């Protein structure tokens, strides 16, 4: 099936989502995804950051789709034409979604362990406005320990439901889910029960923000001061692949996570023994340093000034929409 995204054509298999087709092309045209997780069945469609415009439905039915669609849950049709960053509507809608995601987020990045590898931080930096228009109290929750290794900081949660899907699909029995509705809905375990499961630690990896954090790593270090190294071990657990990233500070392994690809998704899930208990170098067979994009804050130690994409400089509508950013650029 042939699909064209922002003018780039690509051949994909039937049943591929627009987002995955865009990921095959790669580069700037990949829509951001906060809730979609390719390894988790049924995820996606909730955060609405990946909205795109379908200007031509298919070869057979060339009508455009009336609304913006969530690219992670819309499958491609033959001859479909999609606009992502070339559509001012999409950019505007995405800005709106980012603003909505941030209005109830505490923005406590300076004390948050996720800072530096937080998807919301990247997204806010890229698409959000510098100032908020929201002038009311933000919703807050008490911190909850779910088990002795994981802490839930619900205030930071953006309700992507990824951890619910992990609990549903990776672990044996699901004991945590969503309570309440609307903006007071929260992730919780049944009557604050501890999550006790071999694979429960994966909820930390899938969390796009700092809502679920590793208690063995909390407040130990900033991610950009640590050195990621790829390693593996023969894990006794048959479901665990044993392939991890070790995060070194000096000589010590201070954190173990699953290996994440360029979209922040774990390549394979790991068990809690690998994640929480094996924190000595001699537990592991070192493979080599983990490649981190030069754009990442982990690599460069600071956030780079965002250069507008080339298409923004040529399209007058987008130029108008990004006026503030141009001004900021010239000021710096």
């Amino acid at each position, binding site marked *: 099936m042939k699909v064209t995204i922002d003018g780039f054509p690509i051949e994909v298999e039937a049943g591929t989502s627009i987002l995955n087709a865009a990921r095959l092309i790669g580069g700037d045209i990949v829509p951001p995804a906060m809730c979609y997780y390719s390894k988790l069945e049924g995820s996606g469609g*909730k*955060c*609405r950051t990946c909205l795109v415009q379908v200007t031509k439905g298919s070869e057979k039915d060339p009508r455009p789709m009336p609304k913006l669609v969530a690219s992670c849950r819309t499958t491609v049709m033959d001859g479909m034409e999609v606009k992502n960053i070339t559509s001012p509507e999409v950019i505007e809608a995405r800005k709106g979604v980012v603003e*909505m995601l941030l209005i109830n987020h505490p923005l406590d990045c300076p004390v948050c362990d996720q800072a530096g590898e937080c998807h919301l931080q990247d997204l806010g930096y890229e698409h959000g406005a510098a100032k908020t228009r929201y002038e009311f109290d933000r919703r807050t929750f008490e911190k909850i320990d779910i088990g002795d290794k994981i802490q839930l900081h619900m205030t930071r949660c953006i*309700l992507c439901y990824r951890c619910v899907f992990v609990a549903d699909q990776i672990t044996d029995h699901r004991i945590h889910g969503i309570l309440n*509705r*609307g*903006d007071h809905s929260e992730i919780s375990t049944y009557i604050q029960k501890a999550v006790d499961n071999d694979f429960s630690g994966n909820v930390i990896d899938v969390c796009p923000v700092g809502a679920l954090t590793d208690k063995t790593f909390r407040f130990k270090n900033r991610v950009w001061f640590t050195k990621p190294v790829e390693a593996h071990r023969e894990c006794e657990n048959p479901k665990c692949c044993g392939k991890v990233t070790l995060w070194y500070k000096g000589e010590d392994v201070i954190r173990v996570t699953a290996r994440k690809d360029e979209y922040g998704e774990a390549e394979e899930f790991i068990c809690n023994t690998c994640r929480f208990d094996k924190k000595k170098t001699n537990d592991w067979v070192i493979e080599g340093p983990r490649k981190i994009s030069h754009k990442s804050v982990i690599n460069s130690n600071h956030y780079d000034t965002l250069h507008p994409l080339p298409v923004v400089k040529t399209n007058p509508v987008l130029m108008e929409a990004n006026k503030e950013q141009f001004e900021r650029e010239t000021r710096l």
Partner: protein
Amino acid sequence: MARKLLLEHINVPGINTFDVYRSKGGYAAVEKALKTLTPDEVVEEVKKSGLRGRGGAGFPTGMKWSFLAKPEGVERYLVCNADESEPGTFKDRYLMTYIPHLLIEGMIVASFALGAKTSYIYVRGEMMPQIRILEKAIAEAKAKGFLGKNILGTDYSLELYVQPGGGAYICGEETALLESLEGKRGNPRIKPPFPAIAGLYGCPTVVNNVESIAAVVPIINEGGDEYAKLGIGRSTGTKLISAGGNLKKPGVYEIDLGLPVEEFLYSDEYCGGIANGKRLKAVVAGGSSVPILPANLFMKTINNEPRLMSYESLADGGFVSGTMMGSGGFIAYDEDQCIVRNTWNFARFYHHESCGQCSPCREGTGWMEKVLHRLEYGHGKMSDMDLLVDVSKKIEGNTICPLGDAAAWPVASAIRHFRDEFEWHVTHPHEATTRNFGIAHYADPLPKLEATAS
């Protein structure tokens, strides 16, 4: 006096019992459909009737039925959506309370047409009396052989169940309703797939409003062509309107679609005009989620034609100067009502009822509510109106289900048509908390029907 199809025998004592309902010609449609028609012929009759979904969206019911996938060896389901919780709408509750057998008769015919062997009526959780009425009615029908195995000696069997809902507005959205019916959290599903392909338990499912299903009964009794003669244009048949607000005679009325709104509002047969001799300020024509209109725009379209109670005429002018038929929750506001307060009230409802699944609706509805609360209590700013319009635009169309749109439209339309009243709340904060803005120019020239022919 227009002919009633649904509420013809509503005033007969004991119509809620099987025997009285049967003696008034009830269950004739079941006999006719099961004994003389094939399922496809029933669908064809409904298609011919031009019946449009009465739940709000107005999608042709016959079309919806014909889209139902019919794979071999897979169950098909019919689900009746009785989760009526839109502020201003109470027609389905009325129907279920007083004439429950009409719904059950419609369910049998519709299930037969779709080939469903099990059907559900999903009733809003707060309507416990109606649930008991329906269960009693189902038991009566079953005892008389109209439900269960081999109905009326034919080889068609049907089981009908009533399911109380959890009491959430969002469960009236068809996919959320199916999730809730399956025993899960009532979150709307991401479409596609549509319920006609994969609905309840992954099987093809049709979800219809109570009134749509009840309307199948007169369609089968009289034929689709006869039914299509009522009404106007593509709005065929009759519609239940639940009129409320500052009216002399609020209540549920059955109207022929195409009735002039002026007649509906002011004639003694229907609402009887505005209560206490006051003047009309604004109207919400189809339940809280449709755009609110000031009196002058509601009475006459922008082309100065009189507006009619029909899907097309109410929508005339799009969102700039029109509204929608919606679910028929007609709310009239007189000159003493405060539009800002009303808008805040609606926004509060949608904030409370948002399911929290997708971000624009979850965060945006709360934001709008807080800004409107501030405006209502005199702490607003001039920039708030633009902020509200902008936020409502960011929600509209970007959400999984139509609740986002439903939350955005009343706010956007109130600011579009009543901006001076919002501004007055900012400029006169002390007065705004003690008195109302009044009617301004919204009702000029004041439309009033002269002596109604009764």
